[in-house]
């Protein structure tokens, strides 16, 4: 008799785990496909203040507001804006989690797309986390000589180095852009930017001197 219950309990627990995982995936997929529309629909819910909000929703609304605020903070301090974030959970158990993430965003004007897999193992008192695959695509005229670096980062799986470097690189590009623009504005006859102010090419040609 006991055994029957125990078996049923185990089966129910598995079913519940599966349903929860399924629910997570479905909700994620809804947001991936229709995020903009949903945010639009929910705007009216958000705009209600005070007693007009239903109590069951108000906790969720507060949470979402807080999360949005926190995300703005992280984006500002990290200098990295994430426009897309797809998460796929490949394996989830008590001690192990394997996920695939696909991120797209920008660092100032530099666009990137990064796909990576991360494995987390709970080992008694320590959490071991490692990145197992990295794929990076960068877009922009500034990235002409970046491909060697990107290959190296993909080989060494150094995700953190990529984003640190992206930040520094973006700042330098911005400085260069401003410098070029400044020169062009000040000396329009002599200075030309054949590829625009975002490129790495500035030509100085004096009309009086040869060459």
């Amino acid at each position, binding site marked *: 008799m006991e055994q029957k219950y125990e078996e049923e309990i185990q089966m129910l627990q598995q079913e519940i785990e599966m349903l929860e995982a399924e629910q997570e995936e*479905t909700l994620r997929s809804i947001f991936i496909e229709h995020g903009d529309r949903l945010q639009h629909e929910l705007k009216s819910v958000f705009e209600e203040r005070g007693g007009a909000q239903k109590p069951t929703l108000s906790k*969720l609304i507060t949470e979402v507001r807080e999360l949005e605020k926190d*995300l703005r903070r992280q984006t500002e301090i990290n200098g990295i804006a994430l426009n897309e974030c797809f998460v796929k959970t490949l394996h989830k158990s008590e001690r192990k989690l394997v996920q695939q993430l696909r991120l797209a965003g920008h660092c100032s004007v530099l666009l990137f797309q990064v796909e990576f897999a991360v494995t987390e193992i709970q080992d008694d008192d320590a959490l071991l986390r490692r990145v197992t695959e990295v794929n990076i695509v960068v877009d922009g005229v500034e990235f002409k000589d970046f491909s060697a670096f990107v290959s190296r980062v993909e080989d060494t799986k150094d995700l953190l180095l990529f984003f640190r470097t992206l930040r520094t690189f973006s700042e330098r590009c911005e400085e260069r852009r401003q410098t070029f623009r400044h020169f062009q504005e000040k000396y329009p006859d002599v200075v030309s930017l054949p590829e625009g102010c975002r490129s790495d090419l500035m030509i100085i040609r004096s009309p009086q001197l040869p060459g």
Partner: protein
Amino acid sequence: MDGQVETVEQGVLGHLMALERRGMGQQDQHESQRLEMLKVRAVALRAQRDQLKHQADAVKILKDKISKDLPLDDADAAGGFIELQKSLLTAWRMQLKDLQRAHHLIGGYDLVECKEGKSVCVSFHTAFEGVYLETYNMELDLTRTVQISRHNIPPSFPLESIAKQILQKDLKGFLQTLSQKLNALAGRRQQVYLLKELVGSVEVMESNQLCNILVLMCTAQGETPKAVLCTLEYGDLTQCLPTRVSIECEDKTLSESPQWKKHQSLLLESPAHTALLTMRRMGSIA
């Protein structure tokens, strides 16, 4: 007819036997209590499972409606509309949490405001070759000037000098420099660890807290095994690779040999443990 009577008898007999068993002392009491508990648990789980199924169905309907571009606010009943909004908000919350995690995983500072905005706490995540290593934390007081109030960065690290140079002028630059140097430190330290783990035959003669100097003793293979001392100096604290490598051996012909010149380059260009594993694989060292 007989069969029927038999089964009834068996039923009654069985029941009597059960009653008899139940009358048999404490053991049985425990068993029946446990049985009760299991029963209760099963019922609770069943209810949870059913509720989840119900929610899953509601969400699937929602997804369907959205895919077909149907209006969402003409739900059948007021209650239905709230369920809908709840699902939408839950989906949104999930996405926001995913984004938070993403920022965390790509090495973000996980900035947290404390003391009503008077101070902030930041984290510096470090990693090497895909493995996440230590996280260092720091609280910055923002009341008048920016001051470091608490941190757990190792004392050997030149924190004060970096703070003096950049902190007041450029907070983000300060964080960036710190992150860069702490990652390089973690990387250098991890190389020493991996060296000991993977290349046990090489002895670490000297290393320090900042891991900016590493002296290794290897055994060169040959007719007679010879001790070779490799000194790796890390002059640039933002890097995981050494700026200078010197090879010393009693046998000068060995240390001057083209093979060891190549090894010297290898140690300059790749992480220490990788270089030594290569050297061992090539048969140069034990």
